[in-house]
């Protein structure tokens, strides 16, 4: 039997890799993919908890997370296309219209 903490540590490592990718990459598409990575790592830990606590609620939560991830990807990529139409770049350093 694999201990529960192994799954949780795996999930934490994948989440941190997603954080690093989001913080360091210049390409906006890769930043979106990093967000998907983070959502997936949370899903791993939810399913592991659901299995080890013998509760089905974790799986329901993962189902809802997948639906929200799909909505997030769709809206994010639509924003990306609208942005690309005004300024043909996906580089986050050059997208500074709000002067942030």
């Amino acid at each position, binding site marked *: *039997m*694999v201990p*529960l*903490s192994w*799954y*949780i*540590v795996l999930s*934490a*490592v*994948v*989440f*941190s*890799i*997603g*954080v*690093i*990718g989001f*913080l*360091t*990459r*210049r*390409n906006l*598409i890769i930043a979106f*993919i*990093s967000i*998907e*990575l983070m959502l*997936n790592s949370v*899903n*791993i830990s939810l*399913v*592991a*908890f*659901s*299995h*080890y*606590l*013998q509760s*089905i*609620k974790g*799986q*329901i939560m993962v*189902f809802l997370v*997948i639906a*929200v991830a*799909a*909505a*997030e*990807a*769709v*809206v994010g990529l*639509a*924003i*990306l*296309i*609208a942005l*690309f139409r005004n300024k043909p770049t*996906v580089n*986050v*350093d050059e997208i500074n219209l709000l002067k942030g």
Partner: protein
Amino acid sequence: MLPKLFFAYFAVVIVGTSILVITRKNPIHSVLWMLVLFVHIAALYLFLNAEFLAAIQIIIYAGAILVLFLFVIMLLNLKREEMEKRFQKQWPLGVFAGMVFIVFLVLILSQIVVFPQLGPYSIQAIQSEGNLMTVGKVLYTEYLLPFEITSVILLVAIIGAVVLAKRKVN
């Protein structure tokens, strides 16, 4: 022993492919490594007796979301971005922050103890009527309202995507 070996294989592949995803220069390569990652995560779900979620992972993530990413990458002309540096100027700071995050999370989470207040859905109980039926029963009774709200979120996403991506006609 054998389950631990299986888990070790899946863990190594998942961590390795997720590092490849965030380091590839070409976004299409990133997305294709993401596909390998999703298949292995689905296998991990099978390992945890969540057959329905394994199928959903393949169908929704690999089948819909990744294809959407591929469409958008191929729609945009990214020749210039592939020539440039792939990381931002402040990337050492980002890697340092992520490493600190990993160390703290692993130190804390490797010692968690879950209080064994087990629920009614043991493996035998789930297998007696099937994973899909168990999930469906709970989803359509106890979690009916969140399920309906999810449909509203998807509707908002559809409308938002159409409004944002529509070309302005003057």
